[in-house]
């Protein structure tokens, strides 16, 4: 978004544009708040899951889109958050609100520890190491049966809506997730428009120059990895709240790859990329299953290729281009 701004001559004057943007955001927020009262519970559940994936993708976008690194194992941090929450609630009997910061903190700590290769390895090598983390996870979860419930997983009671809210369970979960997603969005936004965000962008664009400017490469890469893991862990916690069940087969390598595909299709490094990617992760795999039962992977893969061909900057880039030409038509007319 930022990279297209400020060509003053072409776009409308900033004040007008800011007002339009404010108006649009307010309308969007109203629609988002009204949605759970208009839709059937199953649709509300689906939208909630879109928000869960959006939080995970905000983290992945921080690492891949803004930090210029790659992770094929982000599903593992999602699983750490999901299982961490399940274990805290199942074995510890912790009240659910505490599990969100706790799961985020655990994922952060593990991300910090596993982030060491991120400081040394580039491109393909980092992709392989993160992939290995994701592959390693499922057998690990099955192995410690007494804690993780083994292949059977753990079943939990979902957070119950407080009486004062007057909400149904699906609506309450929706608003909890919405609040968490908005918080993640705000935190991520503040981070990116600061000195730290600029340093990450600098490392992504030109490591040598960034270091000459005094940016500590290893520190920033590792922290980007840990923060990214933290968002994924928080998303995993929300997942457990919403689904009320965890099992190893929900967190296979497939999840990691779908997350990365969703982000790339949504728009790498784009502000709305994670939301569009969340929609993709939620709906496209099951849609392609409907179209072709035998090989859902084929449809899925074809779709990725088509989208990348039509919109190489992702759906966010496509929307931006469409908005741009729409604005031009308006001004001409």
């Amino acid at each position, binding site marked *: 978004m930022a990279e297209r701004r400020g060509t003053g001559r072409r776009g409308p004057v900033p004040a007008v544009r800011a007002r339009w943007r404010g108006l649009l955001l307010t309308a969007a927020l109203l629609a988002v708040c009204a949605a759970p009262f208009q839709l059937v519970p199953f649709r509300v559940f689906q939208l909630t899951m879109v928000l869960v994936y959006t939080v995970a993708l905000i983290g992945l976008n921080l690492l891949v889109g803004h930090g210029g690194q790659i992770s094929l194992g982000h599903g593992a941090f999602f699983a750490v958050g999901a299982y961490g929450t399940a274990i805290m609630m199942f074995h510890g009997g912790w009240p659910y609100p505490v599990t969100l910061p706790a799961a985020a903190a655990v994922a952060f700590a593990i991300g910090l520890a596993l982030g060491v290769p991120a400081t040394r390895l580039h491109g393909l090598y980092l992709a392989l190491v993160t992939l290995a983390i994701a592959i390693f996870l499922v057998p690990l979860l099955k192995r410690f049966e007494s804690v993780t419930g083994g292949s059977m997983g753990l079943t939990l009671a979902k957070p119950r809506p407080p009486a004062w809210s007057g909400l149904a369970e699906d609506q309450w979960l929706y608003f909890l997730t919405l609040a968490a997603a908005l918080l993640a969005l705000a935190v991520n936004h503040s981070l990116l428009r600061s000195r730290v965000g600029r*340093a990450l962008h600098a490392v*992504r*664009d*030109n490591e040598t120059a960034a270091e*000459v400017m005094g940016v500590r490469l290893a520190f920033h890469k590792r922290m980007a990895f840990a923060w990214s893991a933290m968002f994924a862990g928080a998303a995993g916690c929300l997942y457990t709240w919403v689904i009320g069940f965890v099992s190893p087969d929900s967190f296979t390598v497939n999840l990691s790859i779908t997350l990365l595909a969703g982000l790339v299709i949504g728009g790498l490094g784009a502000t709305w990329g994670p939301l569009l990617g969340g929609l993709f992760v939620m709906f496209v795999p099951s849609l392609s299953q409907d179209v072709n039962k035998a090989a859902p992977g084929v449809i899925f893969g074809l779709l990725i290729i088509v989208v990348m061909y039509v919109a190489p900057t992702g759906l966010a880039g496509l929307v931006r281009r469409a908005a741009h030409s729409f604005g031009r038509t308006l001004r001409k007319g």
Partner: protein
Amino acid sequence: MLEVHELTVRFGGITALDGVGFTVARGAMVGLIGPNGAGKTTLFNCLTRRHRADGGEVRYEDRDLLAEPPHAIAGLGIGRTFQNLGLFPRMSVRENVMVGAHHHGRAGFLTAALRLPRVRREEARLREEADAVLARLDLAAVADHPAAGLPFGTLKRVELARALAGRPRLLLLDEPVNGLSHGEVDAFADTLRALREELSLTVVVVEHHMGFVMGTCDRVVCLDFGRRIAEGPPEEVQRDPAVIEAYLGTAA
């Protein structure tokens, strides 16, 4: 301010720098010349800790420069530009310049994520300083433009602006006027002379453009095949038979 002693750098079989030594006094403007492959950029890379030295010593403000980690160089007051542009193409011109002031900020991941008041104050200050540098170099009009896709001469100035944003005491410029038009070269020379006064800079500049070197530098060091073959006032070095031969030798 800067003392280079017996500096040696090897890449496999190639000796890029072979026992090079010279000193740069505070406030001086030194030209570093020599034919292609003489080792000029390698020398800069050594000073900014991009390459390890295989021998020799570099003292900067009474400090052993070669013992400093690469990211600490900017904080010691050394700024540089790159021979083939080292900008951040997907960031705006203003953001590029603000990265130049990275070591003047304190905001970390947590304080930035929480957007604490002091982070906001610091951000406003960095932005103001960057805008001042941009205005000084006539770049205010392109501040919000991505650093990719601007004319070459403009990008060269953006790099200078980014280096200046770090408020360096020692400025290393690697071929700053390479690829510029006649008019642009003269304008750049004027700007550089003025900035040197205003900011009491010490400058080492690598350049093949002899007119530029003669017009701006008060001392010149000439390298050839990694060795220092001449040093002195510009007119003297220009007349030095060894220098003439080095240039003719490669031209022939």
